[in-house]
């Protein structure tokens, strides 16, 4: 019975893994974070954002970017486990 379950459900598990990977990709969008960093810099240079606001936002974005890059590195190396 266990073998039959395994054979029946394996394709669906594969799809769930793929969907999970896509979701992680979108949640940790490195390119979007890099764009946000550039926009933050631009608005500061144009005088629309104060130095304090610029530095605060920069620190937030850099931390998010580090996390995102780490997640992508793990995804690429297959070290991210999908827990069910």
């Amino acid at each position: 019975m266990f073998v039959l379950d395994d054979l029946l459900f394996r394709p669906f598990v594969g799809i769930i893994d793929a969907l999970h990977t896509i979701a992680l990709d979108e949640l940790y969008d490195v390119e979007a974070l890099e764009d946000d960093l550039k926009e933050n810099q631009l608005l500061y240079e144009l005088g629309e954002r104060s130095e304090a606001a610029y530095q605060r936002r920069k620190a937030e974005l850099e931390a998010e970017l580090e996390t995102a890059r780490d997640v992508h590195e793990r995804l690429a190396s297959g070290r991210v486990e999908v827990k069910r």
Partner: protein
Amino acid sequence: MTNRYVYGIVDGETIEFETDAVAGAECVYTISHRRLGAVVSDIDTTDPEDTDEDAQRHDDVLREIMDYDGGTTVVPMQFGMAFEGDRELKNVLRGARPAFRRAMTDIEGRFELGLKLVREDDTAVDREAIEADIEDRLEPIAAQSVENDLFSDRLVLNRSYLVGRDERETFDDAVADFEADHDELMVRYTGPFAPYSFVDVKIGAQ
């Protein structure tokens, strides 16, 4: 510190000056191979950390090279190119010699200027008309231009221009005239920079 951090490649000239260089170095100098010179400073790693401060120093040193001796043509390297020693660096100068020579011919006597046009928040603008206006005013003066990434919704235009030293004033005036005619836009005009956007020489650091 036996590794060499590379800023750019020049035509055989011996460049040496004291400055605030990448990773705390205080002097840049040239390592030459058959009339091609790599402008370098000493560094204790081949994998320098990409900090804002050092990225700024990299740009500043390139600007100093461009101003050196009344104007020097330099093929700029991107931030982070460091080599284990002179032999590895000379091998690169030997291998990429034709590409460096071509790049030098393309950018000789010219530098890069950047132009970003930003719309006010929550204000719609006619992008096509603005692009056409900029093209009419600036393209005839510039030797080349490239479109850059529109990384923000508020960016209407983001271009880099390769401009001859002799055309600088004309180009500045054209940008100022455009700005005066377009109250609806914020203009971010930057440079001169070493012409990063107009050279395509890829080398591997070791």
